[in-house]
């Protein structure tokens, strides 16, 4: 009997360890709200979210994060525009076209990119891409939407490519054979059979890639330019939310309105990435249930 009790005890202790992740997640949400909500004593939720002025250190200060939200969305959008086709097509290349030896080199190369610290990419954007953009287009600054989107896209490609590749591999070979047997060419088979069958996997890949891009801090902090204004051209600098938090937290005194405003920005950022992640989760979950049977 004592052994049974001991086993039960162990099981419950292990359960506690498994719950740590959930607890941490809960604590993260708790602290974001605990430290973020006080800002709404000073500014209304609507003014905070949709206010066009972000001047937290002015007198009187303005706490409108709309320009920051737009900044995040704009760089993520343009990054997606680049990263989705490149990532998906690279995955198609690896899964369907690449000869063995090429695959052996290409895959680890993409994995290397995935493991690269983002500060290094941010640095590259500052030191190399920015002057290049500035000189080519004769701009006041090379730190802008285009630069940030380029670097973010470069970062998101490995995420999108590797998950898409898994999805393409899981398409049953019979589908392809059936298509070839009907006289379809390789390209037609890929476009009409393989990619539609892998569509939800590809969608998951895109969602996760976007979640990674919107939450990425160092790249946007270093290369987006830092201007807290709604941009008018793709060569304008912006200040996405993570950049604002990272740049200003060092100077905001603990407990000040500015400090609380940055945590509140964290709430918005947290829920935006959560939405992307849950969407990815939902799509992949549905994918698993329906499986290959539904085209």
């Amino acid at each position, binding site marked *: 009997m004592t052994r049974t009790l001991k086993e039960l005890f162990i099981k419950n202790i292990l359960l506690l360890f498994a719950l740590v992740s959930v607890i941490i*997640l809960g604590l993260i949400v708790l602290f974001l709200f605990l430290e973020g909500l006080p800002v709404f004593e000073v500014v209304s939720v609507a003014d905070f979210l949709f206010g066009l002025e972000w001047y937290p250190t002015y007198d009187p200060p303005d706490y409108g994060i709309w320009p920051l939200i737009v900044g995040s969305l704009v760089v993520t959008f343009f990054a997606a525009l680049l990263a989705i086709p490149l990532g998906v097509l690279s995955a198609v290349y690896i899964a*369907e076209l690449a000869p063995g030896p090429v695959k052996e080199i290409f895959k680890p190369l993409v994995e*290397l990119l995935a*493991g690269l610290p983002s500060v290094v990419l941010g640095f590259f954007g500052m030191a190399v891409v920015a002057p290049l953009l500035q000189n080519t287009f004769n701009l006041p600054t090379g730190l802008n939407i285009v630069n940030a989107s380029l670097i973010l896209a470069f970062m998101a490609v490995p995420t999108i490519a590797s998950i898409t590749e898994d999805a393409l591999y899981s398409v049953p070979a019979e589908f392809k054979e059936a298509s070839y047997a009907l006289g379809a060419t390789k390209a*037609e088979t890929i476009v009409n059979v393989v990619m539609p069958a892998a569509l939800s996997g590809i969608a998951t890949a895109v969602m996760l890639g976007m979640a990674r891009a919107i939450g990425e801090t*160092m790249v946007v902090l270093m290369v987006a330019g830092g201007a807290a204004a709604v941009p008018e051209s793709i060569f304008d600098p912006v200040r996405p939310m993570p950049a604002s938090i990272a740049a200003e937290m060092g100077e905001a005194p603990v407990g000040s309105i500015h400090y609380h405003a940055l945590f509140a920005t964290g709430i918005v950022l*947290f829920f935006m990435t959560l939405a992307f992640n849950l969407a990815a989760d939902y799509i992949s979950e549905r994918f698993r249930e329906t499986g290959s049977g539904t085209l």
Partner: protein
Amino acid sequence: MKRRYLKQHLFLLTVRGSALLIALAICGFFIFIFVRGYGVISWEFITEAPRDMMTKGGIMPAIIGTLYLTLGALAVALPLGVLAAVYLSEYAKEGRLLRFIRVGIRCLAGVPSVVFGLFGLGLFVVRFGFGSSILAGSLTLGFLILPTIIGASEEALKAVPRTFREASLGLGVSKWQTTTRIVMPNALPGILTGSILSIGRAAGETAPIMFTAAAFFTASLPKSIFDEVMALPYHIYVLATAGTRIAETRPIQYGTVLVLVGLVFGINIIAILLRSRARKTKRW
């Protein structure tokens, strides 16, 4: 017919072109980083502290700081992660509780790193009063890599054949003893590989340590876990963005980038070698 082949060729060309573009971009990037940084790196660069307002000298304190933070993160995440994975793989039954835990882990994995930084600042630095310190930074980084470690460990545990568990349980050995004596030893190589990969990630993260551990410059090496440290990623960021001598310190920036990239890749390559060795000597 002709148009059909044209379309086929065009599509395949786009696919190949995209892959080539990515491959060239990655190769170009690494070659560039290597060429610019290679000349800077010397024995002195690795072993000396910065001098003359960071424009001269080396980056030794940042290397040491990054090592401390990464090992600290591992010390936090490894026991938590492995035990959580043991629960998920060996004890949990399908059901609401398990789904709840899994969603929690996936959501934690998706939290942006700067939000981890905010969390670490709010809880460890301010509430617990650890200040900006190795302890606060390690805890923050540890929770950041926790989902990765859980995932890798669970996969390694699940790869242990069911027959081993049956054999042990069939002998009248309890579940916990079966887990610790049969399942975990056989999953160890896989757990290690996953953990080492996540170390690589922890070493390169900047945002979570900006407000919780990293210092622009420390006069001496840390003496306790309550001290601030310099760290390689933060060093790059600071040199590249702050201060008035950005151009002067550019070579040091490239050198630091190469050291960080080398460190992260070194860690990843160790993990990959370990994995392939474990696969070769796999005994089942």
